[in-house]
Each structure stands twice: as structure tokens, then as C-alpha cells.
């Protein structure tokens, strides 16, 4: 059914790597931001900043996810603007295959970025023994996939690459404010709390923080379910509104 998926994915990986600026932007930026934050908060686990210090890994993880989404939106917009999508449409490739190839590329680079972040963070954090790195990675891939689904919807409709970046930023960054990353959701104003309940980032943050603090997956069934629902809804929506040109 997904004829050409692996070949297309492999080509997209190569094409992505051939543009050094893009790689630095998507992979390097979150790592640098993470290192800076770690230097500020991580090295001195005094009272007051202790809670923030514990959240930096979750913050880094969210940065990775957002970076992947912005990159996806931009790539699809460039492909649409340049007539690449239209050319691909006149082949047996389905839009699902095209999006799936990009999602696989983004998830792969998400994992690579996380690896780099872990390597860079060794100076600031010792991985708590109760945290499973595999679980954290899985939680991140899961969160990224769900946030990427919002990216599908944006990517499906933004007309040009010039619009893609700002539209992505406007949609994604306010989500961080409501997500409970900096301020616990309970402490937010009522309106923002309601917004937080429908935004997937909230559940991603809750999942990532929890896993980092040593929770088991059973404590986060609700988060996983919410992320799955968002993924399902957004994928269905984007397949309806997807524009080839």
C-alpha cells in the first residue's frame, strides 16, 4: 500500500543531510538551548531552582519536538511552493506515503538529537537510577508524533514557505505557556487551564516529566490516550484539507 515509502524516506534523509544549515537548525539548536539552560539551572541544585533543574530534561525534549514540527511544516511548504508535491501527485505515491516519509525522517532526527542532548547533559545530570532511558526516548517519540500531527494540519494548508515558519511559531509557542512546563497547570488562570486541557503539549509535558521522575507508564495512561486522540484527529483532518498546490 505504501509503495515507495522506504526509498522516499531514504532519499529524504539524504536530501536533509545535504543541507548543513537545516541540520544545524533542527538538530543543533535544541541541543545548544539545552546546554545553556543546564549551565544556568542544572549545575546548582539549590532550593528554589531545584524544581526547574529537574524540568530541564523535559524542556529539552519539548524543544526537540517543536523543532521537528517546525522543520516538517517548512519542508512541506517548500515542496508545495516549488511544485514538488504536484509532481509527486502525478505518480502512484499517496499523500500518506509522502507525509509518512517525512515523519519517519523527523522521528529519526528527534532520536539523534536526544542522543546528542544526553551526551551533552552528562556534565549536568546524572540519570536517576529509576529512570529508563528507553522509556524516556519512547515518551519523546510518542510526544513528537502527536505534536507532529498538529504540524500536518498546518503543513497541509500553509500556502508558501515564507508563511510556514511564522504560522508554525504562532500556533506552537503559546502552547508552551499553557503546557505546565514552566508553571504547573493548576496554578494557571482558569482560561489557560481550559486551553491546556485540549492542547497536546500539556499531555506531552506531563508524560515526559513523569517518566523523567521515575513514574511507570501506568501512571500516564491518560496522557498517552490524549496524545493518541490528538494524533488520530489531526491526521484525519489533514488528510481532508491537504493541498497539493
Amino acid at each position, binding site marked *: 500500500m505504501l509503495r*515507495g515509502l522506504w*526509498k522516499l524516506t531514504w532519499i529524504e534523509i539524504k*536530501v536533509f543531510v*545535504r543541507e548543513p544549515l537545516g541540520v544545524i537548525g533542527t538538530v543543533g539548536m535544541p541541543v545548544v538551548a539545552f546546554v545553556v539552560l543546564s549551565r544556568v539551572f542544572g549545575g546548582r541544585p539549590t532550593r528554589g531552582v531545584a524544581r526547574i533543574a529537574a524540568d530541564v530534561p523535559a524542556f529539552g525534549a519539548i524543544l526537540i519536538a517543536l523543532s521537528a514540527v517546525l522543520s516538517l511544516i517548512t519542508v512541506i511548504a517548500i515542496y508545495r511552493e*516549488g*511544485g*514538488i508535491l*504536484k509532481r509527486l501527485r502525478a505518480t*502512484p*505515491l499517496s499523500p500518506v506515503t509522502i507525509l509518512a516519509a517525512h515523519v519517519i525522517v523527523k522521528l529519526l532526527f528527534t532520536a539523534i538529537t536526544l542522543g546528542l542532548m544526553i551526551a551533552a547533559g552528562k556534565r549536568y545530570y546524572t540519570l536517576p537510577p529509576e529512570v529508563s532511558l528507553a522509556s524516556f526516548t519512547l515518551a519523546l517519540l510518542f510526544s513528537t508524533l502527536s505534536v507532529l500531527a498538529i504540524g500536518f494540519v498546518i503543513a497541509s494548508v500553509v500556502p508558501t514557505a515564507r508563511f510556514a515558519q511564522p504560522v508554525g511559531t504562532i500556533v506552537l509557542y503559546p502552547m508552551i505557556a499553557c503546557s505546565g512546563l514552566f508553571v504547573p497547570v493548576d496554578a494557571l488562570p482558569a482560561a489557560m487551564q481550559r486551553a491546556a486541557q485540549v492542547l497536546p503539549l500539556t499531555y506531552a509535558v506531563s508524560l515526559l516529566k513523569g517518566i523523567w521522575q521515575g513514574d511507570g507508564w501506568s501512571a500516564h495512561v491518560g496522557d498517552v490516550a490524549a496524545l493518541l486522540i490528538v494524533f488520530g484527529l489531526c491526521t484525519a483532518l489533514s488528510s481532508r484539507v491537504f493541498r497539493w498546490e
Partner: protein
Amino acid sequence: MSSPIVHVSGIRKTYGRTVAVADVSFDTHEGEIFGLIGPNGAGKTTTLECVEGLRRPDSGAISVLGLDPAREKSRLQGRIGVQLQEAQLQKRIKVWEAVDLWASLYRRPLDGGRLLDQLGLAEKRNAWFMTLSGGQKQRLFIALALINDPEVVFLDELTTGLDPQARRAIWDLVRGIRERGKTVVLTTHLMEEAERLCDRVAIIDHGRIIDVDTPAGLVARHCPDRTVVLAADDPAAEAAFQAIPRVDGVSHDGGRFTIRGRGDDLVTNVIQCLSEHRIRVTDFRTVMPTLEDVFLTLTGHSIRD
């Protein structure tokens, strides 16, 4: 004649209040190069994209190889080859990667390496798409259109933006496609291209087909005028030229005579007259009407407007 490869009957396509295609019908037969010709915005690309199954006409019927392109798109895709106007590929995709990807999408692809060789792209197989010249990009798009060994190939404004030399090279490639027994449907706003390349053309303007015929047939029916321009220093010649049958007018400017008339016999008659009257001629040429003139006659405006 066998049933048509492409049958288009009364299609119409509008976008809001803009009528892109008002009423278009034509048939394309096996093994011919068929051209849709007309100015930019005449509805050529929209028509072609409906035939390719990329767009659905508001009304009318299309059949390609006996299939409905809108409803049986996936069955049709393996049997047609498509080149789109102003399409691009990923900037940093290599030539062989594109051909390899396309080949993997079809059941019985041709040998990609040999195809690149035939299209003169063998040396460029490791080049990034963004580094190719306009002509090389178009040759790659022809390769991608041919990779599934299609029965019919659609080419949209194939040579737009190319220099004359690259254009001629592309024409040879398109003739090569016909020689392999394929049917070619192309659009162009270049009358010279239509005249040299197409077996039959459909003239399209403001979303309507105005006439369909061979280029020579269109010229003969709509622009039967022939003109002979010659240089002679015999002042008595003018009266002799005026006596030639079916001559409409003779004018002269210095030693230069312009003889206007109709019908294919005009040139023969002028030559006969020259020999009968022993008129010495130092220059002789004929001016034939072109599709450009046919277009002007049929639509009242030039194709370049």
C-alpha cells in the same frame, strides 16, 4: 480508424467565476503527436491536467486508454507518463535517485541507467537537481515520464524558457518517443514548435477549441494566401505577373516585386511566367503562411498578446 487513445468530450472547468475551460472536445489517435496550442491562459494546462486525472472537470467526459482519469486514476497511472509545467524536484536530490524512486513506484519500469543514457544525462547522474540547466531538468522530467514505459505521454509546455538549441534537442527526443510507438499529447504556445513537431493540432482560445487539423491542413483551409518575393530589373515584368491566374496583387519597390495570390499552384505559375517572358531574376523566395497566421485569422488576435 481505431478507437482514440484520448477522448475528450465537452469538458468545462471553472474556478469561482473564472472559466478556465469553457468547452473542449478532441480525440487523439495512437502513435501521433497531438498538440494543444494557444496563448497563455487559454485553458491548455487545465485541459491537460483534467486528462491526466489531476483535476476533475465540472462537466463533460474524458476517457484515456478507455479509462476515466478521475475515477480510475490509480489504474491509469501505470499506463501514462506525465511531465508538468513548472514542476520541480527536491533541490538536493540526485538525478539517479529521482529515476530510481520513480522506477520503484511502477510494476515494470524501464532500465533507468539506459534511459538517462538515451536522454544524454548519463554524465549528470550524480548531480543534484538544483545544479542542472533548464534543458537538463526537462530531459530528466522526460525520463521520469517515460520510466514506466507508458502508452501515452503528456507534455505540458516542455520547452518554455529553453534556448533554441536545447529546444531543438528536446524536439528530437519527443520524435523519438513517437518512433517507439507511443502517443504524445503536448501543449505549447510556440507556433513553430507545433508546426515542426505535431502531426495534428487543436487551436484553443478562451477555453474553447476553435479548430483541429494537421498544421498544413489548417494553413491550407484558413490561410490559402501565398506570396512570392523576387528581384528583377525588367520594368515590363509587372504586367506579366498581373496576368498570372489567381494573383490578387502585385506591388514593386525598386527592383523588388511582391506577388500575392492563392493556392498551391501560385509558385509554379510564377516560375512558368518568368521562363516564358525570359525575365532575369536575381533573388526569389516564397513566403508561406504559418500557424501563427492561422491563429490570427481564427481568433482576431496574435498568440503573443
